């Protein structure tokens, strides 16, 4: 097998002098082009894991390699530069609510442009054209100059995807991208992510609440429980027993179509 794209080795994150252990010795590998879904209960460490991978949260122990680079060793400055290759989308979209969709999408290029220009709000013509292209791709071209908070939840998440696309990423981290959306919109958003994965070859790490979504879109699933890796395998391998192990005895599987 080829060299894995992402390697996580013995990743541990401890908050508050040992009071809260968010991740306990998590190790796994991801091949280029995989669509890896992370499942687990709320508070099981999914968000912390994703944020450790682009070091929005500093890991306490362990090493992370992306494309052969040990990112846990990078200086803050080098890390900022490296983050350009890692797109991220969020549960609550995290858009600039008062700014236009266009501005929001252009923020995806902040890492590529000189600071003084971006501070004045100037972006090169090529970036603006790329923004329009990406907005067209997520079906929001006619909303380009509408304020972001005037859009519906699903549309806002698509702006989030366009923002990530602007980075021309190799890796996409999606932190519960559809938890705040209704089932119908969820699928439309997931399909855009799937498209990025299939057509642009972007490796995707997505945390999801619903197992049915995880089975439908994931090429591989890992499960966290209380910060520990309790499952790593193909979607079909999660049977009733495994499910109860991950989600607890009383859990019932809910279908989302």
């Amino acid at each position, binding site marked *: 097998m080829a060299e894995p794209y992402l390697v996580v080795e013995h990743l541990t994150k401890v908050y508050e002098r040992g009071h809260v252990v968010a991740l306990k010795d998590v190790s796994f590998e991801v091949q280029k082009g995989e669509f890896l879904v992370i499942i687990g209960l709320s508070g099981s460490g999914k968000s912390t894991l994703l944020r450790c991978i682009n070091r929005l949260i500093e890991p306490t122990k362990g090493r992370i390699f992306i494309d052969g680079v040990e990112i846990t060793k990078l200086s803050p400055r080098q890390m900022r530069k490296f983050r350009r290759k890692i797109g991220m989308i*969020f549960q609550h979209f995290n858009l600039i609510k008062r700014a236009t969709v266009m501005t929001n999408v252009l923020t995806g290029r902040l890492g590529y442009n000189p600071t003084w220009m971006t*501070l004045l709000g100037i972006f090169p013509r090529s970036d603006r054209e790329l923004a329009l292209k990406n907005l067209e791709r997520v079906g929001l071209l006619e909303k380009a100059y509408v304020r972001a908070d005037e859009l519906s939840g699903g549309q806002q998440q698509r702006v989030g995807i366009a923002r990530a696309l602007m980075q021309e990423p190799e890796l996409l981290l999606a932190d519960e991208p559809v938890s705040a959306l209704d089932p119908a919109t969820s699928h439309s958003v997931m399909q855009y992510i799937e498209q990025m994965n299939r057509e642009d070859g972007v490796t995707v790490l997505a945390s999801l609440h619903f197992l049915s979504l995880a089975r439908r879109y994931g090429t591989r699933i890992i499960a966290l429980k209380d910060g520990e890796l309790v499952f790593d395998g193909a979607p079909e391998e999660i049977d009733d027993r495994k499910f109860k192990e991950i989600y607890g005895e009383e859990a019932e599987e809910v279908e989302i179509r």
Partner: protein
Amino acid sequence: MLSGYPEAYLKERPRWMSLDAVADFFYFGFRNLRKYLSIVLLDMGAIGILWLLMNYVIIRLSTGRIGYALVPWWVFGLGVVEAAALWESFGRSFGHRVARVELRRTDGGEPTATQRILHWLLWHVSVLPIFPLLFIPSPHERVSGLELRPFTMEGRTPKPWWRTSTGIYVAWLTGVALLAAISVTVSWEDLVRLFTKAGTTAKFWRSFFSPDTSIILKTIRDLIVTVFMAMTATSFAVLVAVPLSFLAARNLMRGVVGRLIYTVIRGMMSIIRSIEPVVWAIFFLVWVRVDLTPFAGVLALFVHSVSDLTKLYAERLESIDPGLIEAIAATGANRLQILRYAVIPQIVNPYISFTLYRWDINIRMATVVGVVGGGGIGQALFFYLTGNLWRQAGTVMLFIIALVWAIDYLSARLRAKLA
């Protein structure tokens, strides 16, 4: 079992005499100490204040004099300590309520009478010398088998407030404080005068409704000066308060140095704010007085506005959504870019809104500052009032009312637009 320790610490105890063990002892010990002391101090304060107020009311009502001490000070001190010990051992004290805890057995059950008595006796050995509180569990808890547990209503029926010790305490305190407050501020003679001497103000009201039209132009000029004073003070205050607010926001000032700067600035601001603009005006009049110019008044408003705006701005900064900061940081943006695209969009409108609000306050304050000689319309009002020129004073007041009403309305409308 042992509350306050992390699980890992119990499973694998650090080797004794290792630096970690010593650090953990002090870290958890001080947290424990802080928890107990805050509860004890609250209880002692609560009991002490009630006792002093009761003394005050009793002495005042029985002898008419002012006094606070029915017993010697050392009896008072011991009494407060003892009352706190009893309250915390045999009931759910005020401090327990504030901290949302209650005294239970370590297995969660209702304490027995023996345990409560033990707890109360050992409380003196454990809490009074303070040092034993560094141990977890503290000696009085270790021996009595009781501990402070988070309070929960699970499986219980609520008691009405008059059956709880804290409820009775608060009702009693409110009653006594009200009695004391009335006895300080109102006397029988005052009341008699209030209802019999209304006629003496007739002259004032008559002149108020017959304005002196000859001073209208001069009054309008003073009015404009007042508005300008507020504008100058507010504008320069904004220039200073905006950068200061970033240093006074808890979420942006991390680390030891950051926290120090935060504390110093916040402390300074609250000291400055607690001194009224009128007092600042007198201070600056002594300093820069140049023959009744409004400059001293402007300085007074400026200083007060800086401290007020810094606080308002900083609080707004503290409540910004960290999600957007994450999102912008995730694109590879640097600090300045995060500031420009994640922080500023969230604060611009609230900042403008606060500034307008402060400008509106400053106009009202400017009239007051003028009274001590700070310039503007307040100074004119003061001049007429001290000269017994009632008609002119009435005219000026009509203009002040009109201005304040108009500015109030304008700034409210603008702020509604921004929201």
